[in-house]
Structure formats: structure tokens, C-alpha cells
């Protein structure tokens, strides 16, 4: 009898087909499906669930930029829920010649982070790549839901300091329990 039940369960289990889900924010195809056109600025990951008082890390990525040489990024966060604790440079502008230029301005009072980064030197001019611009570490201060978004002052430039079009912006949903 047990065998019959086991086989029946197997058959019932076999009917379960999981729905396909591709939600990686760095997946260009998935970004298009989610309404984010490239080139774009996105966060990775795009969903975070943490407990109050815990820290978490979010990466800022430039997605599918051509002829990129520098960037100026503004990130906005809910200061009542999270506080930025540190920002570390990413690897997008790292080359074998020089360390990239990397300036940050952390403002927990207004919930803003400004990051400026670019290649240093004439040898490293531009790249066609998807890569991480910065690594942001936050600490949650209160429970509730909040988002991490890009501000209006974001700019990506080519070696001639001409602005590149940013067609899409990602965001992070933070749930603090």
C-alpha cells in the first residue's frame, strides 16, 4: 500500500513544472523584459531582505555602455530606513596602468551618495563593457520597505567628456524585517 501511495505521490510531483523566471538585473535580455533599456545603470542584486540593524552590500553596474571613460553617479536612499556605511570602487575602470579616479560623497542626512570615477591617464581611454562601478554597503536602521534609486545627476561620458545616453535605470527593493 505504501508503495502505491509513493508512486502516486511521485506522479503528482511530476506534474509540477516551475514557471521560468529570469530576474538577474545584469541579464540584458531580462532587463529588456523588465522595461529597462540598455545602456543602463542598475543595482545588483535588485531585491534585498534583511533584518533591522544588519548590513548589506549592493553593487552599482553600468550595463552595455560603449566607449565609456568616466561616470558620475548619484544614488538616493531612504535615510529613515537605511544608512550608507561605505563605498568601495568597482572594477570597471581598473586597468594595468593606473588606479582609476574615484571620489565619493556620502550624505546620510539627505539620503544621497555621489560617486565620481574615471580612467586615469591617456593610455586607458575607453571600454565597451558591462561592469561594476562601485560597491555600496548599507546598514538598516528601521524596519519597513524602501528603495534604492539612481538620482537625476547621473552622467556617463566618453573620452571626449561627451555624455552618453543612459536609457534605463534599475532600482533595489529593500525589505527590512
Amino acid at each position, binding site marked *: 500500500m505504501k508503495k502505491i501511495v509513493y508512486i502516486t505521490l511521485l*506522479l503528482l510531483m511530476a*506534474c509540477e*513544472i516551475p514557471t521560468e523566471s529570469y530576474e*538577474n538585473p*545584469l*541579464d540584458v535580455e531580462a532587463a529588456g523584459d523588465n522595461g529597462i533599456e540598455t545602456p543602463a545603470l542598475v543595482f*545588483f542584486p535588485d531585491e534585498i531582505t534583511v533584518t533591522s540593524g544588519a548590513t548589506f552590500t549592493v553593487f552599482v553596474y553600468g550595463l552595455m555602455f560603449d566607449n565609456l571613460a568616466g561616470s558620475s553617479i548619484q544614488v538616493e536612499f531612504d535615510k529613515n530606513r537605511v544608512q550608507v556605511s561605505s563605498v568601495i570602487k568597482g572594477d570597471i575602470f581598473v586597468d594595468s596602468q593606473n588606479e582609476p579616479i574615484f571620489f565619493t560623497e556620502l550624505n546620510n542626512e539627505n539620503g544621497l551618495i555621489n560617486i565620481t570615477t574615471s580612467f586615469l591617464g591617456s593610455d586607458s581611454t575607453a571600454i565597451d563593457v558591462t561592469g561594476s562601478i562601485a560597491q555600496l554597503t548599507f546598514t538598516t536602521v528601521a524596519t519597513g520597505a524602501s528603495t534604492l534609486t539612481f538620482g537625476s545627476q547621473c552622467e556617463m561620458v566618453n573620452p571626449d567628456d561627451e555624455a552618453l545616453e543612459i536609457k534605463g535605470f534599475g532600482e533595489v527593493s529593500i525589505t527590512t524585517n
Partner: protein
Amino acid sequence: MLFLLRFSAIFLLLTPFLLGQFITDPGAGKPTVAILDFEGRNVSPQEVQTLSERMRTEIGNTNAVRLIERKAVDKIMEEQGFQQSGCTTDECASEVGELLGVQYMISGAIGLMGKTYTIDAKMFTVETGETIETKSVSYEGDISGLLIEMEILAWEIVGLEAPTRLKLKRTGEDDKVTVAVMDFEGRGISVLEAQTLTDRFNTSMSNTKKVLMVERGTMSDVLYEQGFETGSCTSDECAAEVGAMLGVQFMVSGAVGKLGDTYTIDIKMFKVATGAAENMQSVTYQGKVDGLITEIEILGWTILGLNAPKKLLEKKRLGTSAFLAQEAKQAPKTQVGAMMRSLFIPGLGQFYSEKKLWGYGWLAAEAVIGGLIYLSYSNYNTAFNDYNSYQNQYVNETDPVLIAKFRDNSESSHIDMENANSSMEIMVAVFGTVWIANAVHAYMVGPKQNETAFNDVPVRLAYDQHTNQVQFALSIPLD
């Protein structure tokens, strides 16, 4: 009735010669017969000659007539300037008969119409030209089959019934042994009781399906023709004689005696051709007469060197009353019972209905489909695990190249999973369909209620040729 009159006429005609055979010279006194080569119509002369020759050979085996050799016929024909094939009229045949000095002539024709062969034979007196016997046979098949038809015709044209061996040969059942059972001699029991036991023994032997039994009616006819009263042919010699007339290979005779409460059964089976005993069985039984019947039934098997069925042995062990009570307790097998069993386990209903081959077939079919379902499930499981693994890698990967790779792998696994699942669904549907079909089949081949003996009207009308009366028979099966 017509047959009886005809048979009686021929019998009366031939009786003096037949009786004379046992008294003096076996050949003396028998009517003399010559057979002309049959006329061929659409059949080659060689084939007709061969078939005519077969009739000559077989007519010699009947011992009813004295046959004039073909050479003598040919010689006369030659002297008269005829060829056998040219002498086709009755006048010519009579003329040849007169010259040969025979009493009877047999002539005939073998024709082919479409795919059917026809044989027409006639026996007539040379003296008056009167036709004594005519026989017609139609046969469809290879011409070689006419050989056996000619052999049978050889018996029938002289007014005798063809031996059983020939009839069996005709029906292709000559691989079975032919047996006739003489009524057992009753010692201390009545003739009717002895006959009843003989009948039961006959039925039991017939149930073995290893022998072909001569019907009791045929046996009675032969005994009657030989002038024996019922139960008076008890010696081995008499039995052998009857066996030879019946054309069977084996005869069974026996005796059932009663001494106080003890019954003795002695049965002997012997070869008709040699008279050598094939098997002898003796049983001593003490108890109710019911048990004696069971012993007789068992002997029906053991005399042939076979093991009696378990049911009979069980009947012997328990005693008839207890056995029948036990049988009555067991619910009769039904079609619904077969179906319910097959619904529970495929093939079980067929086993229940004694259709073992079908039972194994359904069981094997379901096992194979079950195996295919398991294979599909295994494939599904592998694809499911792969999908989850690739999904985890995809979600956590930050390298765009690897993200694309894991996504592709994940999609591929998802397709595999869907295919395996579809395959599994189809197999499950087939599995279910076969299961239902097996149950329906079990119902169809299940034991049918209307196959019981009681649903057959047990009333018969029969004509008894000895008393020339119609008899009303009512039979109720006791088992």
C-alpha cells in the same frame, strides 16, 4: 430409416458369406467382386488408376468380399480388346464381370469441378445388373486427400461403416489414441450399476483429452450386430473382436465386484492388434458408493498413465459429500469478480478465469508501461534538478557571459523537464487505458453464468433403433 433398410438388405445379402468365413475357408462363400478402374473426368488416368488401386487394397481389408485381382481384370479386358479406361458403360462392366465369373462389379467416376473433386461409385450384380449400393463423395482440397476418401468408400460400398481410424484420419485427428470401453462386468452389483460406473469411467477418460472415445451408441450397435446381449461380451476375445470391428487401437474391459462392504475394481487396457495388455489397474475400496465413483473417475486417468487432477484427489480425500459441501461454500466465479480483480491488479482477473496467458500478457504490458513511466520520471527529475542548479548559478552570477550561459542551460533544462513531463503524462494515460482495457477484457473472458449446465434445457428426444420408438430423455447433471 432408408439407411437401415439399405444396410439390412446388404447385410442379408452378405450374411451367408460372412458367416461362412468363420466356419471354413476364410475366402470361401464371400461374394466375388471386381473393381474396374474408375472413369476420370478432368483427372489424369494415372491419378485415377492410383485411386482405384487404393480402393482395391482397402476393400480387401473389409473381409466382406473376395476381390478379383487387377491382373485378371486386365487379362480379360485385353482378350476382349478393351482398355480399362475405355470400359465405362454398365453393359461393358457387366460383360467383363460375366467373363470374370464374379457376382458383383464396382465401377465409378472421379471428376473435378472447379476446386471440388467428386467420386461416384456403384456396386451392381453382374447377373441382373441391379444396383446394390451407390455412394457419392465431394471433396475439396489436394487430390492426395482422395486416397482416404477412397479407403472409406471401400467400406461403405460394401455396406459397412468405415473404421474409426479412417474417420479420424479424414478429420486429421489420427494423432490421438482411439479407445473403446466395454461395459464393466458386475459381480455383486447390478448390470445398471455396472453400466453407470462404465459411463463415469468413459467420461473421465474423455476428460483427459488424450484419447478419442468410441460412443456408447456405436459400441451398442456393433454388439447388437454381433448378437451379444448387453453385458454378455465380457471375455478378452470378445472385446478384441469388437475392437477390431470398431477399428480402435485399444480396448478397455473390467469388472467391478462387491464383497460385503468392500468393492474391487479391476480394469485392463489392451491393444486390439496384438491383444497385449497395455495397462492394468486394481483398486479395493471400502465405504459409501459415492467414493466408488470417485475411484472410477481416478482410474479413467491412471489407466492412461496420467496423474489424476487435484480436484479428483481432493474429492477422494474429503469424501464426495464433504467435497461437494466445500464446493458449494465457494462462491461461483463471475465476470464481475474477474473484472474487480483485474481492476485491483492487472491480469489478476484473467488468472482467476484460468486465462493465464492473458493474465501474464496484461501484467507484462502494465509492467513495461510502468517502466517507461519511471524512465520518464527519472528524466524529469534530472531535468528538474539541473534547472534548479542553473537557476541558482544564473541568479548569483555577475559575469554577463556566464549569465547568458546559465540562462541558456536553464531554458534547455526547462524544455527537457516539460518533454519528460509530457511523455510521463502520455504514459500514465496509456497505463490507465490499458488498466481499464484489462478490466473490460477480464469481464469479457470471465466465467459466464449462462455456461452452467442448468441453463441448458435438459430434455431430449431420441430415436431408439432397437425398439423403433421415440424416447423422451431428461438428464440432470449431478456434478
